[in-house]
């Protein structure tokens, strides 16, 4: 019987099968950031252990960093200490670090792909659940806890059980105005936010060909929002074209060898998945979340479910979510006023995202009631955007133009919602308090967030795109 893509990557990385315990799996790339690593480095010191492969480790600061002027010292001494701690740990253990003043600093899941460190067929881990992003390249990538960060630092391996496999077939074709974010939100909205727990997902189907690498990253990024261990796209020419020529990608003969190997990374025709589902992308429209988990999502012309549309077992959560969101059952989403618009995060802050959002706001002004900000995913993205003049478009429209970081996706730095504020956000989680205690999040695509910034309310961006085209 044939093997799935996941099984091929898995088998290539098993150092040792062990009786009655998880296998020892080799990790090709370990990404480290300031929030989930200090306790792991402390663990090394306490046990007198060291980092096995600093050359297969890369650190950056992203979660807790200011997105305003970096020449000013941080107001928050606790945050400063966490950033300094990573700096010191990297120095002590000789780990490369893209620090706050590095031209390649940025969100860890943005910088590894754009620098050619994320490659097909690799195993990649990070103490961050959105590590699933890197699956877009056909790499097995997943988030781990701090104890596992310590495990990988020490051994370059993890003890892992093999996951079950789930195929998600994206059928049909993308309608006008439907973005990668809408595809993944539509999928989670249809199947629920925990349906993939215990599975590694392979995204397949005819729509794959229509998706750029950045769009595939958006989709894989939110694999964890349905509980999945990891999400994968089989690498193809789109992948190889994206990787070729990147800073740390292989070149010359090594490139030839690599591509030859990568071309074997697909699911065999006779391979069998443990489960298979599909989504008809042709039927989608732009999506907006209305509740407190990403499964609570509907199309822009839709409404918050009515009581009778919710299964009896889910009504408790339904009412709790609506109470938090201050919305009523049956509420029509279009026209809901927003206070803040956030374009950023490892889900949607790459150059294509910024270009699409800029195209919507170009020559127009944000609504006076809205505080709108763009936080590029990395300093490279920021630089590229500035070379293209996107910063001017955003600034003239009324957006703030910031430095790179996780920012208001989780509000660890000063960029956070105030209690009661409602936000149109391109991030990945609409949990209670996620973007700031008492803040309310509506997840959507960059174009949809841009449209909300202009009107001050949740808006169907397709209307604006059509006006522009006409």
């Amino acid at each position, binding site marked *: 019987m044939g093997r799935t893509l996941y099984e091929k990557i898995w088998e290539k990385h098993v*150092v040792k099968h062990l009786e*009655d*315990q998880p296998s*020892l799996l*080799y990790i*090709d*790339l370990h990404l480290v950031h300031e*929030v*989930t690593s200090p*306790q792991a480095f*402390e663990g090394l010191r306490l046990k007198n252990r060291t980092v096995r492969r*600093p*050359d297969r480790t890369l650190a950056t600061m992203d979660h*807790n960093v200011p997105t305003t002027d970096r020449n000013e010292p941080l107001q*928050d001494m*606790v*945050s400063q*200490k*966490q950033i300094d*701690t990573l700096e010191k740990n990297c120095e002590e253990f*000789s780990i*490369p670090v893209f620090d706050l003043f590095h031209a390649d600093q940025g969100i860890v899941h943005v910088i590894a792909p754009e*620098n*050619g460190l994320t*490659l097909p067929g*690799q195993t990649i881990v990070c*103490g961050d*659940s959105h590590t699933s992003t890197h699956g877009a390249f056909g790499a097995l990538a997943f*988030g*781990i*806890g701090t*104890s596992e960060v*310590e*495990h990988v630092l020490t*051994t*370059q*391996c993890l*003890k892992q059980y093999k996951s079950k496999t789930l195929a998600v077939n994206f059928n049909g074709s993308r309608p006008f105005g439907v973005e990668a974010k809408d595809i993944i939100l539509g999928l989670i909205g249809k199947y629920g*936010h*925990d349906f993939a*727990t215990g599975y590694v997902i392979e995204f397949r189907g005819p729509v794959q060909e229509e998706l750029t690498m950045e769009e595939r990253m958006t989709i894989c990024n939110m694999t*964890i929002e349905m*509980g999945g261990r990891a999400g994968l796209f089989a690498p193809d020419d789109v992948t190889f074209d994206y990787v070729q020529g990147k800073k*740390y*990608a292989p070149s010359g003969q090594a490139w030839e*060898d690599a591509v030859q*190997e990568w071309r074997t990374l697909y699911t065999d025709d006779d391979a069998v998945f443990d489960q298979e589902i599909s989504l008809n992308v042709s039927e989608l429209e732009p999506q907006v979340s209305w509740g407190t*988990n990403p499964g609570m999502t509907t199309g822009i012309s839709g409404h918050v479910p009515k009581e009778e549309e919710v299964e009896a077992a*889910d009504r*408790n*959560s339904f009412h*709790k979510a609506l109470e938090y969101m201050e919305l009523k059952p049956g509420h029509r989403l279009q026209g809901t006023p927003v206070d803040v618009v956030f374009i950023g995060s490892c889900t949607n802050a790459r150059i294509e995202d910024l270009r699409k959002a800029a195209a919507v706001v170009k020559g127009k002004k944000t609504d006076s009631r809205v505080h709108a900000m763009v936080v590029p995913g990395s300093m490279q993205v920021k630089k590229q955007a500035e070379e293209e003049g996107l910063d001017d478009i955003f600034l003239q429209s009324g957006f703030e133009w910031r430095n790179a970081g996780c920012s208001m996706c*989780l509000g*660890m730095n000063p960029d956070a919602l105030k209690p009661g504020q409602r936000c149109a956000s391109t991030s990945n*989680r609409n*949990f*209670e*308090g*996620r973007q700031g*205690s008492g803040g309310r999040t509506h997840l959507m695509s960059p174009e949809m967030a841009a449209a909300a910034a202009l009107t001050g309310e949740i808006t169907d961006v397709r209307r604006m795109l059509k006006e522009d085209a006409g």
Partner: protein
Amino acid sequence: MREYFEKVHSHAAPLDAESVDTDTIVPKQFLKWVTRTGYGDIIFYDWRYDQEGREKDFILNQSPARDAEILLTKKNFGSGSSREHAPWGLKEFGFSVIIAPSFAEIFYQNSIKNGILPVTLSEKEVDHLFSLTVADPHAELTVDLDLNMVKASDGTIYYFEIDRFFKDMLLHGLDDIGLSLQHEADITQFETEHRVYYQPPSS
């Protein structure tokens, strides 16, 4: 700091919510610390305290739930962020067992590594335990990992499944990093044959 998991006799704290995410368990403002300790006082911060820091009418602020060693909750517990601060805080607060119909995967692993036993029972079984605890908040449960068994106050016995290795980790306080280090020669051998294509950034 490995601990040995022993049989637990305790009443349970009933947390009647589905998909409690790790952002809720440990909100972002407490992720700035570089320690493994101090999180017991701040778990469920927004649910436990108002904006002035006063205790709200939340289950874990009430007696006897606040002294429980067992947390009883609904499906998909621990979803979202991989932050291990969540089990650190739950453990420090006093929980060594969490019973739910399902758990998010990263949280489950993080719990095992911190001496917390995640017990997966069916929704029906969990509902029964909820009804006993609501009727009598002092109703004692026994959780026996040796026997994979939960015994309720009314004598009902439920058996749960747990992976053999995870069970050993909890029962014997295994250092899984130490176990992996025993295979150092295998790792070295693997590295000589396995090709990694990127060029490492300079440190």
